[in-house]
């Protein structure tokens, strides 16, 4: 599903990722861990084409990054659900509208949108908040709206950047369960986190990044 070969990314002359190579199988749930600034977010951004590598090759779902034309990027991103670290919710739209946006972008007809959005809000336990605006929600609730928006279109790949941020252990466990459930349906899930509790005893592969280099891979 994801293949990185000797990928290097440089910001302002400093390498954020150094000759990174790894492979993620289709249908896998995998964790990327490391301190802040280790390069976790950069790695995810390279996957969803928000950044270009300075060197190396990236292949997503069989397509090499350097063969993609700018006009194709939106269509490739539609196969990817993203849980952003900074949420990126639209403050002036309701929870429902924020989640529905992912389907509208994909050109889904209005009558099909409502049942799918409401079902996804049920999965993240936010159905009762569908008419609320994001600024009125708690951090955990906002995080679940972002997850709902990322999974509503049933993407082939789900990327989550620090999905449990500053959440309490109970909420974090709930979020991990959602990831496991969607992964069980066949979606490949990549979670970047520094929250050890999230992957300990998960039985999944964990990549450890230190200053942009992959220093270890283990199964937790």
């Amino acid at each position: 599903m994801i293949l990185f070969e000797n990928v290097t990314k440089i910001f302002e002359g400093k390498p954020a990722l150094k000759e990174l190579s790894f492979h993620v199988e289709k249908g896998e749930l995998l964790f990327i861990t490391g301190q802040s600034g280790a390069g976790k977010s950069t790695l995810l951004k390279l996957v969803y084409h928000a950044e270009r590598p300075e060197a190396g090759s990236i292949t997503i779902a069989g397509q090499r990054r350097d063969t993609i034309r700018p006009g194709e990027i939106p269509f490739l991103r539609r196969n990817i659900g993203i849980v952003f670290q900074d949420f990126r919710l639209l403050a002036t739209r309701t929870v429902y509208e924020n989640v529905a946006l992912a389907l509208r972008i994909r050109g889904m007809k209005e009558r099909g949108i409502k049942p799918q959005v409401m079902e996804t809000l049920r999965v993240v336990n936010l159905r009762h908040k569908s008419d609320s605006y994001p600024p009125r929600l708690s951090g955990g609730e906002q995080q679940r709206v972002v997850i709902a928006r990322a999974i509503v279109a049933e993407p082939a790949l789900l990327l989550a950047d620090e999905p449990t941020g500053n959440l309490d252990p109970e909420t974090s466990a709930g979020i991990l369960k959602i990831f496991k459930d969607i992964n069980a349906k066949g979606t490949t899930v990549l979670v970047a986190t520094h929250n050890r509790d999230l992957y300990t005893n998960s039985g999944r592969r964990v990549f450890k990044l230190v200053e942009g280099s992959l220093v270890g891979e283990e199964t937790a």
Partner: protein
Amino acid sequence: MNPYHLKSALGGLWKEKWIHFLSVLSIAVGLFIITLGFIAVYNLHYLAVKLPERFSMTVYLKEGVPPDDVNKLLADLKANNHVQKASFISKDMALLELKKSLKDSEYLLEGLEENPLPASIEIKLGKDFVKTASVKQFAGELKEMAWVEEVQYGEEFLNSIQSVMSGAKAVGTVFLVALLAGIIFVCYSTVKILFYRKADEVETLKLLGATGWFIRAPFLLEGSIIGLGGGLFAGLAGFFVFELSLKGFAGAMPVLRYFIVPAWAIYSLPAIGLAIGFAGALVALGRIRF
């Protein structure tokens, strides 16, 4: 384009309604001034087209011109390609015309023992020949002819009206283009500001997989609606000023009766506003990079 885009555009407009209302008013004022200028140029152009049809030259003949020479003169004139019509007005006919025009003041002619009016030939020239230089040259040629005393054609009037028309057309065109550019700039800057304010939202949409057109659509709609609003206001102002006020004042100022206001110029303002708004927004958005 779907209902979501329209809802999004209307929401965006409503959120900052006063700023957008000012943009609408700026466009309306600009379009209204453009319409004023256009109607002025249109009327001048109309006058320029109609002038040759009304233009005539009068060739006054010397006393005692024999009928054979008059006929020869008429035949020569009619043979000229530039002359559309040449009619002889005898001394008696000229006096009769004068008497007709002095219907209530005939006593002015009572003391006259003989007819003081000269015989003349009235000439209508072909439309394309009514130009200052060509008419002047033709008048010179006529003056050289036998039995011709004087040629009158309102040289000063022809000179001034033609220079005013060419000047007005040039100034009018520059003025209209400048104002049109100004209006496009109002739409451009309104949408550009909106776009900058929504930069975060645009970035999110891009990351969620939205295409350039999906992102542009609400902004294009907003620009078009602002332009349409400006066009509607300008159209309404035009309708009240030209259709109602001018007709109302025509009684007091008869010259206004000759003023032509093409209705299509007023009714097409909303469509023009919409097109300008759309164009301004399109330029403001430019290429969306991924």
